[in-house]
C-alpha cells in the first residue's frame, strides 16, 4: 500500500512510524517498507567524476563513478552524461531490467572492446520506472552520493496484514477510512460518475443462481478507444506491481485497488445474444481463461455466460473469448457481489488465487458494487472516452443493514471498565457508524462498507479498539471458588515422567506424524502393520503422512540419530498413539516408550574404575519394575516371547486381546535395518492400563520383631523359570515370608547337563512375635518340599 496513494484520501499529520503503530494497535498489523528495497538492492546514488571516450568506439564512453563506497569504471552507450552529474549506479550483482529485452537480469562484470566495466549507470527503463531507455536518469542535487538508491527514489509503503473480517480494507480507500478513524481526520472521497442512465441496455441480466450471486451490476459503455493508459495510471499500477495492459483493463484494476471491489470488462461484440446469464457450469463445460489455460468445469463453479457459452468464471477470472482488444468499441462492465465462500471454493479447486478471487473470497459489502461502478464509469470516460449508455442492477435480496440495539452497560459488562459515553459515540462516529442514544440504550447502524459489525459485541470491540485497549484495566477474577479435581490420568502420567527421569533416562518428544515406510520396518518380517494407521490426506511430506499407531519407530529413529556420536542412549517418551476406530475419532492411547541401546555410560572407563558395559534385557526390566514400584502398581504376569521382538528375549502382557505391555531386545533383523546396535532394548507400556493396576496404599508400620533369613539353593531343570520357583516358594511359606530375593543363577560343570541352580534368600518376619529357630526351619522345609514336589527340585548341597 503506497503511502503516497493513501495521502490522496486522507491527511496524515503524524509520522509514518506512529501511524503504523496506531494501525497495529487498532487491529491492522502494519510495517513500513520501501517499495524498491528489494528490487534496487546493490544500487546507489553515484557521481560521475570522469568521462572519456572508449578508443575505437563512436558512442561508447568510459565513466568513472564514485558511489560513496568505492570508485568504479563503467562503460555506457548513453549520450546525455556529463562530468559531475549525479546518477543511479548499480553494482555487480544488482538485478535490473534489460533495456532491449525487457527481461530481468543480473549484472555481471564485462569487457567491451577490451575495456573492463564494473557495474552500470541506469536508465529509467532499466530501473523499472518507465519506458525511457534513451538516456541515463539524471538525479537532481537533493540526493547524497552513497545513499542507497531505494532510499533516494523509492516510496514508503505500508505492508499491512489484514484480518479476514476486514474486507472493507482491501482497497486503498478502505484503509484511508481506517486511518482517518484512528487519527480523527476526514476522508476525501473520490469522484464518482453522477448518476446512472435511464436508457435501456441492449441486453438483460439473468441471475440463475441467486444463492451464489447476491448482486450483479452491469454497465454498457459505448465508444471507448482502447489505448495505453495515461502515465499517472500506469505509474500507479506499476507502483503496486501490476502490469499496465490497456486503458479499459487498467481502469478495472485501478478501481479494484482503490475500492477493494474487483470488476471485469467484456467486449460487448463478443457477448452473443441479449442475455448475460449467471449460472452454474455444466458438467464438463470448457472455458479458455485469460491465463491461456483450458479449464474443464463442473456445477460447483459459477460462471458468467452469454446465451451460448461461458465467458468467465465468476469472481475468479475472465474468458479469452470476450477479452478487451485493441478494436473493442463497446464494453460491458461487470461489478458484482458473489457469495464469498463459493468463490473461495472455486479458487481453491482451480488453484487460481487471482487478485479478484482473493478479494471476492472475503465478505465484501454489496453496497460497494454501485459505488465502484460509478467510480469506474467516471474513469472510463476520462481515460478511454467511453460513455455510459445503460446500467443494470440486479439485487433481489437487499442486505439488511443491522440496527444494533444495546445498553451502554454492555461496554462495562465486556470490558470491565466504564467508557465515557462521548468517547464511545465519538469512536463510532469516526468509523462511520450512525447512532442514536435513547436513555441508556444505544442504537448503532454500521457504515455500508462494513459487513463485520452485526452484534453488540462487535460494537464494543470497535469502540474499544478506537479508544485503545490500553484503557482496559487489569483485574484478577473474583467470584465463586472453583471446585475441581486434578485429573487422575494426568497426575499419574506426570509421576511416571518424574520416575523415569529419576532413573536417569532422557525424555524426548518426537513427531506424531511419521513415514509410512517406518511401520513395516519395525517388524522382523517387514510386513505391513495391522490395523492400518490413520493417514494424512494432504501431508506436507511423505515423512509426515501417517498418524503414528506406535512410538516404536520414532524411538528407534531418535536413538539411531543420537548413536552417531554417542556410544549409548537411554530414552523415553510419553505420548499418545492413535488407533483407528470405526465411525469415530481414533483411540488416543497414552503410551510410555522406553529405549536403551549401546553402552550404559556414554564415557570411557575412568579412574573411578568399573568397566563400561552394554545394556541388557535385565537393565530394561529393572527400569520397568522400578517404575512399577515408584508408581505403586502391580505389574501383570508377563508371557515370554513377543514375535515382533527378539523371541527369546522379550515378554508381553495382554488385556482383552490387546497388548498392554511389551518389552525386550530388538529383533536382530530390525536392529540391523535401523543401523542400531544388537543391544537395543525397548519397552512399551499402556498408561491407562498401568493406572488401572494401581495398588491402594496402606502404609503399615514396620513389624517390631526382628527378621531372620536363610539362604537356600535348589537345582531344577533348565526349562523352569524363576517366576514359577518364586510363586511356589511364596505360597508355601505363607505370609511370614517377608522377602524372597534371588541371589544367583548357576549353570555349569558342577551340575548335570540340562540343570541349573537358583540360590535364594528367604527372609522371615512376624508381626506378632520373634520367630523361633524351629519355626523358621519348619517354614524352610515346607518351601523346599513344595519345590521338590511341584518342580522336581533338589536341594543343592
Amino acid at each position: 500500500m503506497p503511502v503516497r496513494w493513501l495521502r490522496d484520501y486522507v491527511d496524515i499529520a503524524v509520522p509514518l512510524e506512529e501511524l503504523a503503530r496506531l494501525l497495529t494497535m487498532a487491529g491492522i498489523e502494519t510495517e513500513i517498507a520501501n517499495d524498491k528495497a528489494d528490487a534496487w538492492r546493490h544500487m546507489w546514488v553515484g557521481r560521475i567524476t570522469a568521462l572519456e571516450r572508449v578508443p575505437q568506439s563512436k558512442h561508447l564512453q568510459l565513466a568513472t563513478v564514485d558511489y560513496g563506497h568505492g570508485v568504479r569504471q563503467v562503460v555506457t552507450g548513453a549520450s546525455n552524461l556529463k562530468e559531475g552529474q549525479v546518477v543511479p549506479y548499480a553494482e555487480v550483482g544488482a538485478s535490473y531490467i534489460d533495456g532491449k529485452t525487457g527481461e530481468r537480469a543480473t549484472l555481471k562484470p564485462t569487457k567491451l572492446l577490451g575495456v573492463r566495466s564494473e557495474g552500470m549507470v541506469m536508465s529509467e527503463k532499466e530501473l523499472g520506472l518507465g519506458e525511457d531507455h534513451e538516456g541515463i536518469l539524471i538525479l537532481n542535487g537533493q540526493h547524497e552520493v552513497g545513499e542507497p538508491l531505494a532510499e533516494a527514489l523509492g516510496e514508503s509503503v505500508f505492508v499491512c496484514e489484514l484480518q479476514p473480517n476486514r474486507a472493507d480494507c482491501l482497497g486503498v480507500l478502505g484503509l484511508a477510512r481506517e486511518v482517518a478513524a484512528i487519527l480523527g481526520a476526514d476522508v476525501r472521497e473520490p469522484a464518482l460518475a453522477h448518476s446512472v442512465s435511464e436508457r435501456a441496455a441492449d441486453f438483460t441480466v439473468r441471475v440463475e443462481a441467486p444463492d451464489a450471486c447476491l448482486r450483479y451490476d452491469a454497465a454498457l459503455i459505448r465508444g471507448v478507444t482502447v489505448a495505453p493508459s495515461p502515465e499517472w495510471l500506469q505509474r500507479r499500477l506499476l507502483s503496486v506491481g501490476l502490469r499496465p495492459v490497456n486503458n479499459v483493463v487498467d481502469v478495472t484494476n485501478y478501481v479494484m485497488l482503490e475500492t477493494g471491489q474487483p470488476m471485469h470488462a467484456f467486449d460487448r461484440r463478443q457477448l452473443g445474444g441479449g442475455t448475460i446469464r449467471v449460472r452454474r457450469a455444466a458438467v464438463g463445460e470448457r472455458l479458455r481463461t485469460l491465463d491461456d489455460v483450458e479449464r474443464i468445469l463442473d456445477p460447483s463453479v459459477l460462471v458468467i455466460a452469454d446465451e451460448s457459452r461461458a465467458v468467465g468464471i465468476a469472481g475468479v477470472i475472465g474468458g479469452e473469448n470476450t477479452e478487451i482488444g485493441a478494436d473493442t468499441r463497446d464494453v460491458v462492465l461487470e461489478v458484482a457481489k458473489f457469495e464469498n465462500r463459493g468463490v473461495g471454493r472455486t479458487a481453491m479447486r482451480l488453484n487460481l488465487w487471482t487478485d479478484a478471487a482473493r478479494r471476492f473470497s472475503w465478505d465484501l459489502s454489496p453496497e460497494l458494487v454501485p459505488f465502484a461502478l460509478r467510480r469506474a464509469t467516471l474513469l472510463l470516460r476520462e481515460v478511454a472516452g467511453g460513455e455510459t449508455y445503460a446500467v443494470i442492477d440486479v439485487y433481489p435480496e437487499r442486505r439488511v443493514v443491522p440496527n444494533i440495539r444495546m445498553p451502554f452497560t454492555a461496554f462495562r459488562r465486556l470490558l470491565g471498565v466504564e467508557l465515557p459515553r462521548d468517547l464511545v459515540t465519538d469512536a463510532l462516529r469516526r468509523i462511520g457508524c450512525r447512532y442514536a442514544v435513547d436513555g441508556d440504550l444505544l442504537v448503532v447502524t454500521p457504515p455500508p462498507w462494513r459487513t463485520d459489525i452485526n452484534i453488540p459485541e462487535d460494537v464494543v470491540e470497535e469502540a474499544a479498539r478506537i479508544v485503545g485497549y490500553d484503557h482496559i484495566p487489569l483485574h484478577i477474577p473474583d467470584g465463586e471458588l472453583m471446585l475441581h479435581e486434578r485429573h487422575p490420568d494426568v497426575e499419574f502420567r506426570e509421576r511416571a515422567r518424574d520416575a523415569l527421569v529419576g532413573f536417569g533416562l532422557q525424555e524426548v518428544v518426537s513427531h506424531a506424524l511419521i513415514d509410512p515406510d517406518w511401520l513395516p520396518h519395525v517388524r522382523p518380517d517387514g510386513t505391513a502393520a495391522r490395523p492400518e494407521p490413520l493417514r494424512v490426506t494432504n501431508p506436507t511430506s511423505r515423512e509426515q503422512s501417517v498418524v503414528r499407531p506406535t512410538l516404536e519407530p520414532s524411538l528407534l529413529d531418535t536413538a539411531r540419530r543420537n548413536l552417531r556420536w554417542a556410544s549409548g542412549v537411554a530414552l523415553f517418551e510419553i505420548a499418545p498413539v492413535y488407533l483407528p476406530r470405526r465411525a469415530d475419532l481414533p483411540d488416543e492411547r497414552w503410551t510410555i516408550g522406553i529405549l536403551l541401546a549401546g553402552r550404559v555410560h556414554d564415557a570411557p572407563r575412568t579412574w573411578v574404575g568399573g568397566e563400561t558395559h552394554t545394556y541388557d534385557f535385565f537393565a530394561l526390566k529393572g527400569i520397568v519394575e522400578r517404575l512399577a514400584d515408584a508408581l505403586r502398581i502391580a505389574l501383570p504376569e508377563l508371557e515370554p516371547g513377543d514375535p515382533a521382538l527378539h523371541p527369546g528375549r522379550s515378554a508381553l502382557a495382554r488385556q482383552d486381546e490387546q497388548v498392554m505391555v511389551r518389552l525386550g531386545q530388538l529383533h536382530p533383523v530390525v536392529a540391523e535395518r535401523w543401523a542400531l546396535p544388537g543391544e537395543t532394548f525397548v519397552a512399551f507400556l499402556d498408561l491407562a492400563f498401568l493406572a488401572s493396576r494401581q495398588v491402594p496404599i496402606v502404609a503399615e508400620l514396620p513389624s517390631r520383631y526382628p527378621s531372620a533369613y536363610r539362604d537356600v539353593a535348589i537345582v531344577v531343570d533348565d526349562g523352569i523359570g524363576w517366576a514359577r520357583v518364586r510363586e511356589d516358594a511364596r505360597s508355601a511359606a505363607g505370609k511370614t515370608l517377608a522377602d524372597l530375593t534371588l541371589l544367583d543363577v548357576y549353570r555349569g560343570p558342577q551340575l548335570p547337563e540340562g540343570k541349573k541352580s537358583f540360590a535364594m534368600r528367604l527372609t522371615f518376619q512376624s508381626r506378632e512375635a520373634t520367630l523361633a529357630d524351629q519355626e523358621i526351619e519348619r517354614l524352610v522345609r515346607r518351601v523346599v518340599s513344595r519345590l521338590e514336589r511341584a518342580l522336581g527340585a533338589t536341594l543343592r548341597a
Partner: protein
Amino acid sequence: MEDIARAKTVEDIRELRSRLLGKKSELARSLAEVGKLPPEQRRIEGERLNRHKHLLETALDERERAVAARQLDTTLERERIDVTLPGPAARVGRHHPISATIREIVRVFAGMGFETIEGPEVEWDYYNFEALNIPRDHPAREKYATLWVSNPLGDDPQRPMLLRTHTSPMQARVMERRQPPIRVIVPGRCFRYEATDPTHESIFFQFEGLAVDDRLTMADLKGVLYSFARQIFGGDRKIRFRNDYFPFVEPGADVAVDCFLCDGRGCRVCGHSGWIELGGAGMVHPNVLRAVGYDPERWQGFAFGCGVERLSMLRQGVPDLRAFQQNDVRWLAQFPAVM
C-alpha cells in the same frame, strides 16, 4: 608429672592413669592407710592426698585431650584425598523442555484456579472450526492451514476428521460437558500444514485457557495474563493488548509482553519492537456460547491461546524451533534436570 608430660599416646596415658591412680597405686595405698591415722592427722593427710589425686587427674585429662587431638590430626592428614578428582559418572535424566514448560505453565495457572484438562489431537472439523464460529469455507480458515485425516476403517464425508490446528476445540468440548463456572487450561499438541523452518513447525504445542462465569470481563483476561507473564518472565513485566481477530472471540486481542531482555527498548529477541507476542485472546464469542447451549445473555467469559515452544525459545534462548522435536541428546542435556 614429668611422666605425664612425656606421654605420647592415649595408650601411654591409660597406663599412667592406672599406675598413678589405680587400685594398686601408691596413692591408693596411702589413701587406704589414712583411716589408720589419728583423727586429727587423718583429716590433714586426707586432704593432702585428695589434693594430690585431683592434681594428677587434671593433668592426665588435659594431657589425654591434647594427645587425642594430635592423634586425630595425624589420622585426618593420612586420610587426605584429592578432592578435585571427578566423581563417578551417573546418568542424569531430564525432562524434555516441552513437557517441562507445560508443567510450569499449568502450575502458574493452577495457582489462579485453572484446572488442567486435555482433549483429542485428532478432531472433528466440527470442534476445530464449526463450533468455534468458523463455518466451512470461512476466509479465516486460511489462517489455520489444516492437515486432514483419513480413517482406514471408513470416512464420513459429512464429518471430516482433521489434526487439530489449535487447542481451542476443547473450549467447545468442555462447555458441552459442564456448566459454568469454568476455568480450565488445555495444553497439547497441534498440527498445521506448514513448511518447516527455524520459526515454523507443522507439529507444535499450544496451551489454551478458558474461563466462563456470569461476570468475567476483558479486564479479568488482562489481569490473568499479566499475572502469568510476570510469573514466567519476571516481576517487572508489562502487558499489552492490541486489537486482533479470531472468529471465536469478540472483542479479540493480540497479547504481548514487554521484552524481558531489553526492558522494551528493542533487541534481537523482540525483533527490535520492544514487545514479545504471547498469543491471541478475547471474550468468548456469543455464537460459540450458543453452539454449546449456553445462554449468552447469562454467561460470558474469556479465552486465550499461546505457543509452548515459543515460551521456551524466549526464555532459554533457543534459536531454532526444529530442535525441540529433533531430540539431539546433546541439546537436551543443556536444560536443567529438575523442574
